[in-house]
Each structure stands twice: as structure tokens, then as C-alpha cells.
């Protein structure tokens, strides 16, 4: 019988240090024909250290490799950081519902990301770079703690060719960047309220950003949010990620705000 828990060994093709505490791993494909959509994730593991989920951060059309960006926060991620080119990482997946990028075709797109929330939206940004005509205008709002935590900084010049990138730092160390939370960007930038919004970041960010967006006239059904949850199985059995009648692992992690409004807020569904 097929075993969904089976993990596939992927060779590390490249390790790219990213900001002060993160690394991007370029991995060989887990198996032939592996493909994914922006917002989907994989379970990555090292024998003896367990598994954890990581949003796939690479280009959708890359048929040779995938990338995950890992911030060092716990035992597994620390061990991942010890891995070198040529070592193996176990991968299973991809899992989950992606950001509905088809819905955004030809429309304005707003990407709002905070801290380590940017990797699952990088495939979408790279898609926009690859197909500049696919979306109308693409705005990126990215908030971080300080300069040392900005991910993919080397790519920003390329992103700026196609997207309007706005960065803001909570505690900037220099005066190069704007100071403030990502919400402040809504006061400075004028974003068309008909944009399809994609968000990923800490729950606290959602609360304030959503208030701003609804205020600006965004429709709940056009706002898509990726939720983070504790997950063990990745297929809607183990119950760790359940909210209401849904499982974040397989019905999400991406939900529209219109869907999320149906969940009981006192259980902190976001």
C-alpha cells in the first residue's frame, strides 16, 4: 500500500546564506514529475530530528530543483543549517492548497509579507518576473525586524523591474529603509482596492493589516492568507492543525479572508 509518510532523499545542490539567521537550500527534485503551486509546502526532515513544514520558495517552472528557506529557530532547523552541499534532506509533499494565482491573472496584485513569511510567495514574485504581462501591477509590502533579517535581498533590483517593492523595518539600523510596521505602508502607498491580496506573516500582522485593507475597501474574498500551524501528518488526520471543520494542512494553508471570517475568533483561527 502507498505510504504517504515516506520521505524522499533530496541532494543539496547549493546552500545560500540568507540574512543573518536563514539559509536557502537548493535541492534535487524528490521524485520525477514533482511540481507545485505557490503557497504549497513540503515536509522536510533529517533522520533523528523529525520533520517540519517549509513553504516551497523556488520558481514553479524549475524542473530540476526546488528551494526552501530555513530560519534557525529549533533543533531541526539548527541541524538543517549544519548541512552542506552534497548532503541529503528528506522531503515529502507537496501538500496544501496554493494561492489562487489564476484568479490574479490580468489583475493588480498586492503581496503583504512579514519576516519569515516571504518564502511561499517568492514563487509568485518569480512568476511575475518571468511573465511580466501575466499580472497587471504587482505591489510587494515587506516588513522585517531590521536589515539583517531581510530575505532574498540580492534579488530586489530584479524584482523592482516588474514589481513595486516597498520595504519597512521595525528597528532599522541605518536610515536606508523606512521605519515602521508593514501596516504603515498602507498610509504611504496608494494601492488599488481591486487588487488581489496575498499574505503570509505572523498572526499579529494579519490582524492589523486586515483592518487597514478592509478600511481601504478590499473585499474579503479577494484577500488570501497563509496560516502557520503545528502539523505532523500533512494529510488531515493527526488533528494538530484543525480549525473549525477544516484542516490547515490540506484545506489550507491558504484561505480567503471570507472563509476565515466563518471561524470562531476566540479560538484564534488566524
Amino acid at each position, binding site marked *: 500500500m502507498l505510504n504517504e509518510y515516506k520521505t524522499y532523499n533530496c541532494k543539496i545542490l547549493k546552500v545560500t546564506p540568507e540574512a543573518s539567521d536563514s539559509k536557502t537550500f537548493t535541492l534535487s527534485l524528490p521524485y520525477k514529475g514533482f511540481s507545485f503551486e505557490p503557497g504549497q509546502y513540503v515536509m522536510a526532515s533529517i533522520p*533523528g530530528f523529525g520533520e517540519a513544514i517549509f513553504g516551497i520558495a523556488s520558481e514553479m517552472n524549475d524542473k530540476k530543483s526546488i528551494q526552501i528557506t530555513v530560519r534557525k529557530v529549533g533543533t531541526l532547523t539548527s541541524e538543517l543549517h549544519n548541512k552542506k552541499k552534497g548532503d541529503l534532506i528528506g522531503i515529502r509533499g507537496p501538500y496544501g492548497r496554493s494561492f489562487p494565482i489564476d484568479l490574479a491573472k490580468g489583475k493588480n496584485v498586492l503581496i503583504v509579507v512579514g519576516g519569515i513569511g516571504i518564502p511561499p510567495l517568492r514563487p509568485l514574485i518569480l512568476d511575475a518576473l518571468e511573465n511580466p504581462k501575466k499580472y497587471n501591477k504587482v505591489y510587494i509590502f515587506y516588513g522585517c525586524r531590521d536589515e539583517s533579517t531581510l530575505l532574498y535581498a540580492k534579488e530586489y533590483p530584479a524584482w523592482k523591474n516588474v514589481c513595486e517593492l516597498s520595504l519597512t523595518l521595525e528597528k532599522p539600523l541605518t536610515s536606508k529603509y523606512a521605519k515602521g510596521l508593514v501596516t504603515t505602508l498602507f498610509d504611504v502607498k496608494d494601492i488599488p482596492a481591486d487588487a488581489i491580496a496575498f499574505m503570509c506573516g505572523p498572526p499579529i500582522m494579519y490582524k492589523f493589516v486586515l483592518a487597514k485593507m478592509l478600511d481601504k475597501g478590499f473585499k474579503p474574498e479577494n484577500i488570501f492568507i497563509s496560516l502557520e500551524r503545528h502539523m505532523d501528518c500533512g494529510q488531515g488526520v493527526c488533528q494538530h492543525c*484543525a480549525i473549525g471543520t477544516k484542516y490547515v494542512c490540506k484545506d489550507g494553508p491558504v484561505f480567503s479572508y471570507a472563509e476565515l471570517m466563518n471561524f470562531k475568533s476566540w479560538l484564534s483561527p488566524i
Partner: protein
Amino acid sequence: MNKTKFRQFVEFLLKNNLVIVPQYNVEGYLHLAELKNPKDLYLGTELPLDSWKWYLIPPFQKMFDYKNDQFKEILPKVGKQIFLGVSILDLQALTLLNQVFEQDPYYQEIKKKTIVIGTSHVPKENFYKYFAKFEEDKLEHLQFDIFLAVQKNGYKIYSGSEDGQRLLDKFKYKNYQHIEYAGPIREEGLDQQMVSVMDGMQNFHEQKIWDDLGKRCMQCGKCTIACPVCFCFRMYDQSNLEKDSGYRSRCWDTCFYNEFTQVAGPAPAAPKHRLMNTTSQKIYFWYEHHFVRTPASFSLPGCVGCGRCTRTCPADIDIFQTQRDILKARQRKK
């Protein structure tokens, strides 16, 4: 099947198989254990304290062995086993587990070697009224191999699978009727009690119920161990003493523990973020799984009304009372 024949049937089952049945232990508790002496078999309205899930989803289960970077699938090594005397309530629970673990190779490996023999016995105190009166047409929505419907002088016998038929044929018993499983949904539609409690929780939320329970519950998790349809698990790796080898496994988990919804960690310095922080959130989550999520996903009741959780709860939390409270709030607000 009259009583003499039934005694022979039990002896026949014991000849080549591991037979698990409800029986009293030395302390006087009814529990599940391997039947050694046919005399010890208990078939009656009392439910064993522990549930059949122990034998289908063991508390600890090895999933893979690893050596260096290679994982090897380890399927459970179990022989043939027979569950004898499964109350119709517990059959409902097993029917649900079969759906939940339909794609799970570990569960299926054990399941395919298991023969389930149900009975129409139901505990006297049971909030879930549906099975209080046994009717034959209730059987087609339950999964079992053989079923014993209690009659005055023995049992009326049904088969519910080919395995069950084969076993009865081998015993040279012909006087049985076959019932084909017709899926979870009954002719009359969804279970009304299930639908009302679900509606109460979803649309007529009463915070007070959960705040009160939150004050009483001590998050011990005993109810989740006792419940025949609680199956949450967590996965973890364990290394052997020998270098670079070990196993990946899963074990029962309970939604009352803090780590259940914790993300990032467990390095001491890591930021800990939990989705459920209060006791009332946790107990609500537990009820929500039983009364909302399971019916929504499987059209099956996520609580079979066995009362095991109430019996085990050290805080005296009575699930039937909570159901009544949910229904009352629904009545009031409707």
C-alpha cells in the same frame, strides 16, 4: 445460534486465533484482554473501560527505521486477531476509524488481519439514543465481519464481510444472513442528534458553557485516551544508541497538552507560539472535533455516546450534560 452452539463457536475461534474480548480483571474492572478461558468472556450491556482502538492504532507505533540517511518502512507485525463482543456503539466508532485511516498503511495492515464480531448490547445509560433499540436495518451502515443480535435463547447471526462469511462457513454454520455495507448515510438522512448538536455548536455558540468547563477541566487528557474515536497522534524520531540509526514513529497525542498547537521550538531560546492557550479553548477544540469536524468530514457521529470520557474524567465533566447544555442554548437562541 443457541447458547450451546455459541459456546462451541467461541471454542472454535480460540483454537487458532488470538481472541480479544471484554472480561473482568482481578480488580473487578471490565476491560479488554486476550481470552484464555471461554468462561471469562463477558457479553452484556456494560462497556469495557478501554476501547478497541488500542488494538488498531497502538499507543506507540514504529513507522520507519533509519540508518544513516535511509528510511525503511516498518509495518506492524501482527497475527490474525479477533475482536469478540464489540458493542454496536463501538462498531460505530470502528466504522469511523476505518474511514479516517482509509489511506493509512499501518492501520490497514492491522485491520486486514482483524475480524470484528459485534453485538447488539448497548449500555443502559446512553445519551446517544439511536442504538438503544436494535433494528436490523441499522446494521447496513456499520462495518463488521460478524454480528450477534441478542435473542432470548442465543443470537441471531449476521455476516458483514466475506471474511465473516468464510469464518462462519468454516464453522459449518449456515443459518446466517448477509448484510452489505451501504455507506455511512442512512435512508432517513443524517443522524438528527448529531445534526442538532453540530448546529448548536456552530450557530448558537454560548461562551459560558466553555468558560465553565475551562474552569473545571485540568487538562489531564484522560478523556482522549478513553474515547474510542480519539485518534490524534504526534510523530517523532528516536535515535538508537548505535550511531546514525533509529526510528520514526507516532504515538497518541492529546489536544489538552500545550505542545499540541505549538509552532517553532523546542530549542529553549526559540519563540513559542501556541494557537490554544486557555483550557476553555482546548476543551472546546476537543468537543469541536467530536461534534462538528467529524460529522462535517465523514457524515458520521464523532461521539458514539459510550460515556467512557465521563467515567474517566477526574473533574467529573459529563459529556452528556454538555450536550444537553449545547442543545438548551440552541433552543433558547433559535
